[in-house]
């Protein structure tokens, strides 16, 4: 590359356009420019795949996450699957009653359950943030009415939220029954 400075072969058939051969110096400049461009591309390509987008948020994350937790409960109590769809990441994993539930399964269950039959009473929660990740730990009481009889269950949960392009989304949630 960039060794001999020979005139360019412009013969391409009948409608050949004659291009005057560039000088040796201009060829070298072009070659250097090409090399630099090539290197720049490599660097750009490498960094674009390896360096994740950074997100910095000055405070307020905890309040945002708490608000989302409340929105989740509110949306669920109103069977508002549209709101839940925005709160939940598509790859959400949810462990409930010892079963692993996907986002689709969770939403279809919310659709089936009558909004009157279950009520959730949220209790204090703590939010820990780790950059683009937030962990929520808290407890809630769930009142379920079945066949005219109500049962109250007490749960402790851990929710994991991740900041993505669309904002904070719930990526994992699990609850364990609290033995009193």
């Amino acid at each position, binding site marked *: *590359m*960039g060794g001999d400075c020979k005139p360019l072969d412009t013969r391409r058939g009948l409608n050949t356009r004659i291009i005057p051969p560039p000088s040796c110096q201009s060829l070298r400049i*072009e*070659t250097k420019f*090409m*090399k630099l*461009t*090539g290197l720049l*591309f*490599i660097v*750009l*390509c490498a960094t*674009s*795949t*390896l360096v*994740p987008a950074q997100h910095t948020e000055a405070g307020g994350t905890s309040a945002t996450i708490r608000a989302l937790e409340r929105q989740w409960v509110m949306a669920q109590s109103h069977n508002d699957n549209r709101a839940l769809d925005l709160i939940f*990441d598509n*790859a959400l*994993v949810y*462990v409930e*009653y*010892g*079963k*692993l539930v996907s986002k689709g399964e969770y939403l279809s269950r919310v659709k089936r359950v009558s909004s009157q039959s279950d009520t959730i009473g949220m209790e204090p929660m703590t939010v*820990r943030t*780790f*950059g*683009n*990740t937030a*962990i929520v*730990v808290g*407890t809630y009481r769930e009142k379920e009415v079945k066949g005219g009889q109500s049962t109250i269950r*007490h*749960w*402790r*949960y*851990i929710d*994991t939220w*991740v900041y*993505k392009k669309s904002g904070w989304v719930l*990526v*994992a*949630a*699990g*609850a*364990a*029954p*609290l*033995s009193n």
Partner: protein
Amino acid sequence: MKIVVSIIFLLCMGTPAGYAQAMLDSGAESKIIALERAKLHSSEAKDLGTLDTLLDNAFVYVDAEGKLLNKPQVMAYFLTVSMLQFATETMAVRLHGDTAIVTGQYRMKGVERGKPFVQRNRFVDTWLHKDGQWVAIASLSTPVAD
């Protein structure tokens, strides 16, 4: 030279960022599974040094009875249980950038205060890529539904 630059350009554009990402993801997934196994082995062996490196200082754990434990409490718990054995049944990793979610099932048996116990739990673990290494920041276990 133009051809070389074009090839580089095509490689960069054509090497789908997704492919490179998939390669990185599969590497991270196997690493996290290995770390999960290391976490269980170090718990069985009461290897608190290894556990200390695997668990973030802000690590929180909710056990199958709904008890909330922090990192020192988790480490202290493993010291109280003898003949602890874990058997992982399933494990799946989902990556979300620097965050990894691991779900699975395990069987746990041991002797606590002279009483033998057996548990079969489902778990959800959250790992974070922090300062160049993966650390567990949260974990929850709940009894597997029959």
